[in-house]
């Protein structure tokens, strides 16, 4: 206002540049995460008003205790879904996902593909969530939700052929490895651009609801990618139109080299973002398969009952490198993943099942061996049709297909020129 007497200026200002608590060489430090006891968080009815359950964004829904017991109201909420058969299936889904990842990582190292993204340590989230989706529902995943496909029984052969860009690649070589598209498995074509699909998932759910259909959708985004503008777009349209969508944030603490404080995640939990838009959110132990099932059930039930959107922040840790192009030892302590307070999702479910008498170390070892042979066999089969740069690969001319439904003249001319 230029009335120089009024507000007083102060000393020199500065900005704050968020830094993770530790860097390579330091001892890992997860003291910033407050981990409540399993069973400690309430399970409100699915039609609870958002303003009456804000506290859920500031704690963590956990079901499996340290001892491997399923405890508390979220276990109760699961009810019949907690049967052994179902949990054993979950365990195997996670095992298969992990084995698949390991094989594909090696395949990339062997030059069979250009790129791969593991989900090591995060297997429970996608495999658990998918159990609550129905045929015809649609996920809008990122490159780290292969668990959705595995849990839905997608053919690993098809997945590997896509990764290899070989002649059986269902995408004819158009797309980067891991950026799958499997419509029949309710798995939307993954974009290489972060965030864009968050609002598309909301739009898809709007489409379903406008049509009076009963299909729901799920959006997926990483902690780092919540920074993208499409995150706000998705939250906003979910708030305004209240479509049947579950909005999933996989908070695995890291983007590439940047930690989630650079997405604002250390000033408030990501789950709290929903409060500004007036819809419910959950913050959930993403390494607890039972908590994943319970929260997924809660949120999908809200969607199916037309109660509107739910935001879920899945708290987990990216044990793997960001991708095969990344080496995390350059920016975080090597031992960080061992110090991660929420443990390993696979080990935790295994412990639970063993405690319950539904599983044993022996059966586990045997199942592991079976899964490994299965994946190896499928991989071999896929390699008959080539790998990247080996074998005939997708027909080169296929690159001209699918730009439009019908090829316009200028592309026809270009294809002719290409053939010449």
């Amino acid at each position, binding site marked *: 206002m230029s009335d120089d007497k009024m507000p007083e200026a102060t000393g020199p200002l500065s900005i704050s540049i968020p830094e993770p608590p530790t860097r390579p060489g330091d001892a890992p430090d997860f003291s910033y995460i407050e981990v409540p006891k399993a069973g400690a968080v309430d399970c409100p009815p699915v039609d609870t008003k958002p303003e009456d359950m804000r506290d859920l964004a500031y704690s963590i829904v956990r079901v499996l205790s340290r001892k491997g017991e399923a405890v508390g109201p979220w276990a109760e909420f699961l009810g019949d879904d907690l049967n052994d058969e179902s949990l054993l299936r979950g365990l195997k889904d996670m095992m298969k996902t992990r084995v698949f990842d390991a094989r594909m990582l090696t395949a990339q190292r062997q030059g069979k593909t250009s790129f791969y993204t593991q989900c090591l340590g995060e297997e429970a989230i996608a495999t658990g969530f998918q159990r609550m989706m129905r045929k015809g529902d*649609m996920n*809008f995943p990122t490159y780290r939700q292969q668990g959705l496909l595995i849990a839905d029984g997608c053919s690993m052969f098809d997945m590997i052929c896509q990764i290899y860009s070989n002649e059986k690649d*269902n*995408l*004819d070589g*158009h*797309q980067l490895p891991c*950026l799958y*598209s*499997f*419509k029949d498995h309710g798995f*939307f*074509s993954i*974009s290489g*651009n972060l965030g*864009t*699909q968050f*609002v*598309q*998932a*909301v*739009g*898809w*759910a*709007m*489409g*379903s609801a*406008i*049509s009076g259909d009963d*299909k729901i*959708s799920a959006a997926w985004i990483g902690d780092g990618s919540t920074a993208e*503008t*499409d995150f*706000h*777009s*998705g939250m*906003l*349209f979910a708030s*305004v139109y209240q479509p049947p969508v579950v909005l999933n944030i996989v908070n695995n603490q890291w983007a590439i080299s940047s930690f989630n404080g650079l997405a604002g995640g250390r000033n408030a939990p990501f789950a709290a973002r929903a409060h500004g838009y007036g819809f419910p959110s959950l913050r959930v132990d993403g390494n607890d398969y039972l908590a994943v099932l319970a929260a997924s059930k809660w949120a999908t039930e809200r969607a199916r009952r037309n109660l509107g959107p739910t935001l879920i922040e899945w708290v987990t840790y990216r044990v793997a490198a960001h991708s095969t192009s990344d080496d995390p030892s350059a920016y975080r302590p090597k031992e960080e993943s061992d110090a991660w307070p929420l443990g390993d999702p696979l080990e935790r479910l295994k412990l639970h099942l063993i405690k319950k008498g539904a599983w044993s170390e022996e059966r586990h070892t045997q199942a592991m061996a079976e899964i490994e042979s299965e994946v190896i066999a499928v991989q071999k089969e896929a390699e008959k049709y080539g790998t990247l740069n080996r074998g005939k690969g997708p027909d080169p001319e296929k690159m001209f*297909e*699918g*730009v*439009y*439904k019908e090829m*316009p*003249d*200028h*592309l026809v001319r270009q294809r002719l020129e290409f053939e010449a």
Partner: protein
Amino acid sequence: MARMTMIEAIRDAMDVKMGMDEDVVVFGEDVGYFGGVFRCTQGLQEKYGRHRCFDAPINESAIVGAGIGMATYGKRPCIEIQFADYVLPAYDQIVSEAARIRHRSNGQFTAPIVIRMPTGGGIFGGQTHSQSPEAIFTHVSGLKTLIPSNPYDAKGMLIAAIEDDDPVIFLEPKRLYNGPFDGHHENAVTSWAKHEKGEVPEGHYTVPIGKANVVETGMDVTILAYGTMVYVAQAAARENNIDAEIIDLRSLLPLDLDTIVNSVQKTGRCVVLHEATLTSGFGAELTALVQQHCFKHLEAPVLRVAGWDTPYPHAQEWHYFPGPKRVGKALKRVVEAQ
């Protein structure tokens, strides 16, 4: 047949399609209860209900992004962006998503979405209500880009666009909404009621995508134009007694190259017009194609007349607009070149 303004024709196209196909949904800023700031959607919410025609938050990127989602579900969103100047926040969703989804999913998912937007200057809208962004769309494989110049085409092209299975950018020259405009802003505007192209058939018909319209046949020079510039071309040719063949491109991508090439091979001369800034405008592509396909026939270089390479100024609007005087000069230069 009824006489319609371009606004009425556009509205009628949506009305016809909403009546025929319940997957067609219309949304955008202020399009619901109010019927749009240019009134293009007036009455549609009342007629088809709030689930078929509704207001959207002021977030162009989300409007397109949600529209893409709906389209991949199976709807046919026909979206309004309030001014073409405001489509830029949605550019990523349009280019990286709408235009790519069919190819990257190898046909599993498609985004048949129409993105309508008023384009061009001439209403003292200043730099943020006047721009013509066609060239940033014609560079994008997977998109179609259309721009009608009259009510008849507007209705037929919009119906074709909504029926098209690929994403379509539909540019509406706002200066033509109420009547053909020849660039002489000092004169009163004639209304569509007095123009034969204001005659618009009732019900369903389409003007096919990818076909240009030869508005005037002539021998001296071919003028390639679209939107408002079609009328400026006519005025400039008339005022300079030039026997011009005027082609209204209508569809920029896909482009009706045959019609263009046939004409220039006949006339041997060509002038290209648009309102967008010159450099890297769509006129560059047209010029490149003409010189390539008509090289032996050309008796003069192809000239472009376009908006200056500046923002669209408010006060100097009519100095910026490529009106009949500037176009006439270029025509003379090209026709007189030896």
